[in-house]
């Protein structure tokens, strides 16, 4: 049934295809046309004007002889997708990539400059809950008002009122002016109205987490019922794991363009990969000029950097004496790992003999980048060549997330008075007893 994406090969590439191609993504990340679309977003673009706020007066315009000066900002750039009826569709991407703008174009609050949007069915948006509530009016009066803003007739509201009030859990407060509501009550009433207007299509922008736990449970049940009843949902959220669960399909927007589209699992995986590699890239830039600069440093996938430093100077160290101290340091991407991490360093002699294996004993994950250090005040080893391994594990040490063998090599130099051999260099005191 699709006018804009006929299945012959001569058709121009859709933006998602072009975007995917430029990212080298596999064809699973191309979302084909829907068989029975509830929403068709066809090549929409939206530019915002960003004004210099001081210029927004007639006085300034007259004095300058023209209208307020503005810059243009491309918030949505040639976006197309189709949402299959009865499915849940997700939009993911970084802050400011145009997700909310796309939703607002679908609701028609914002009109795109080019492209068309076709919506088949009654639509309700959970974008701003309780927008249009009048503080002086009672909850009940506001329900009628809000419902009519959302396109509901009085008779329908009459029939639904009890359900709405019960869902919001505001039976006792419904005749109180909403200015006396707590912000949670306000949002709950807004949500209750929006979800009870009997929509065929629900647009949800980051409002999955409203109200207390009890109310959230109710909301999730309501969403599930809505989906089971064949409702179509378009949802924007940064809760990627939830998105993976609830969405059938998703698109990933970057700077207003579609980078990937497809099943939610694939899209979110690719999105996560990108987020991770970008974060690591940034971390590398911040930490230094890559692993190659120092011979005693290395990089893995989750491990952003592992290195060996002199205890005092904190410079990369390749040789030291037994009386000098050293630091083994590892920086890893705790978010990529997804749980707390226990760190282990192993030191091996060049013949493969294990000199020692040292475990952090506790596990940590501190922000996106976690750095763990092991400080050894002395290096009690006999002269020779040694190598250091690093591994990161889960707390129980049952699972190893990553290991880098021999990320550092070092030479232990003989001290002046050498009267010993073997493997370790005890600190020793000699005397006649």
């Amino acid at each position: 049934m699709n006018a804009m994406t006929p299945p012959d090969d001569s058709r121009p590439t859709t933006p998602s295809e072009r975007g995917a191609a430029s990212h080298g993504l596999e064809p699973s990340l191309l979302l084909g046309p829907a068989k029975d679309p509830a929403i068709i977003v066809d090549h929409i673009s939206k530019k915002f004007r960003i004004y210099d706020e001081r210029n927004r007066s007639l006085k300034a315009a007259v004095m300058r002889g023209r209208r307020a000066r503005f810059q243009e900002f491309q918030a949505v750039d040639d976006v197309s997708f189709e949402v299959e009826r009865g499915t849940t569709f997700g939009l993911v991407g970084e802050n400011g990539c145009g997700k909310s703008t796309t939703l607002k174009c679908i609701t028609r609050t914002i009109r795109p400059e080019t492209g068309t949007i076709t919506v088949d069915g009654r639509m309700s948006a959970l974008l701003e809950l309780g927008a249009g509530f009048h503080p002086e009016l009672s909850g009940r009066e506001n329900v009628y008002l809000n419902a009519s803003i959302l396109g509901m007739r009085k008779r329908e509201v009459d029939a639904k009122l009890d359900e709405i009030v019960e869902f919001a859990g505001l039976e006792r407060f419904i005749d109180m002016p909403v200015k006396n509501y707590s912000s949670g009550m306000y949002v709950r009433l807004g949500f209750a109205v929006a979800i009870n207007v009997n929509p065929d299509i629900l647009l949800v922008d980051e409002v999955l987490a409203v109200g207390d736990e009890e109310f959230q449970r109710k909301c999730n049940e309501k969403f599930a019922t809505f989906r089971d009843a064949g409702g179509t949902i378009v949802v924007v959220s940064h809760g990627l794991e939830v998105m993976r669960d609830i969405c059938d399909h998703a698109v990933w927007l970057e700077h207003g363009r579609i980078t990937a589209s497809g099943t939610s699992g694939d899209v979110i995986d690719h999105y996560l990969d990108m987020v991770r590699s970008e974060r690591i890239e940034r971390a590398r830039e911040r930490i230094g000029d890559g692993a190659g600069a120092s011979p005693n440093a290395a990089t893995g996938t989750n491990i952003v950097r592992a290195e060996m430093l002199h205890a005092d100077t904190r410079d990369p160290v390749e040789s030291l004496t037994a009386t000098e101290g050293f630091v083994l340091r590892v920086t890893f991407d705790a978010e990529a790992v997804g749980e707390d991490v226990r760190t282990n360093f192993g030191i091996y002699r060049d013949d493969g003999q294990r000199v020692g294996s040292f475990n952090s004993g506790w596990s940590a994950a501190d922000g996106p980048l976690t750095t763990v250090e092991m400080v050894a005040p002395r290096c009690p080893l006999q002269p020779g060549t040694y190598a250091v391994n690093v591994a990161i594990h889960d707390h129980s040490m049952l699972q190893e997330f990553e290991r880098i063998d021999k990320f550092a090599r070092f030479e232990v130099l003989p001290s002046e008075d050498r009267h010993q051999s073997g493997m370790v260099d005890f600190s020793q005191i000699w005397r006649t007893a």
Partner: protein
Amino acid sequence: MTATARRRKRPDYPLELLWNLTLRELRGKYKRSILGWGWSLLNPLVQLAVYSAVFGILFKATPPPGDPSGIHAYSFWLVSGLLAWNFHLNGVMGAIGSLAGNGNLIRKVYFPRSILPFATSLSWLVSFAIEIAALILILAVFQTINLAVLPLVVVAAVLLMLFSLGLGLLVSAVNVYFRDIEYLTQIALQVWFFGTPIVYNEKLLTNPKTGLHYHLLGIDVLTIEKLNPMYHFTGLFRTLLYHQTWPTFGEIGVLVAFTATSLLVGSIVFRRIEPRMAEEL
């Protein structure tokens, strides 16, 4: 193809929403005060008292005698024009406020934006109706009232509402782009008020010595007044409530023409700016 067939049907103008928003305005206006609807009359009463004192007593303004009603009182002459002016003023300023004050709603929810100024106008129409009803009651008790004018009072009120709405649509839309329009409009309305013979008799526009009209920039001031819609609207309400007779068809034709022009220009400008309102506000 089916894609076009499925194209969303343009919904009708949501009258139900218009009604609810009007109710919201009215309830918001009157709920805040204990006296409620009574307050609606206080402002015109105070205005009436002040203007009557200043112009009627201090300046000894003399209104023309009501013909054929026979009423000859400055306060009644004044109030029949003043109420109409206030209605106009509220309609225009209310329209600006209805867009500027509902940015939250406009940014988040789609509906025809003109509903907001329209609802405000309707709510002021209700206030105006109360004021006019009170005036008619007082006239009936203390003076006289010709009930035959009542149907035309209703028509005149609706006409004036639409005239102010047209202007309100224009300035409220432009105010989205230029934030100082609100203040400029306020100033312009002030000048307009004193430029219209509302508190003073239009006889003052004639030089008592020469018997000729004054001139402004070489133009006969009465010609200017003939081009002033509010000259005609306040005149209409005086004809109906002070003189208590029917206006001529010609006079009604002029008012309809003014109203149609105002609505036309207002809606054209409003519709042009409407698509961008959500992002500009």
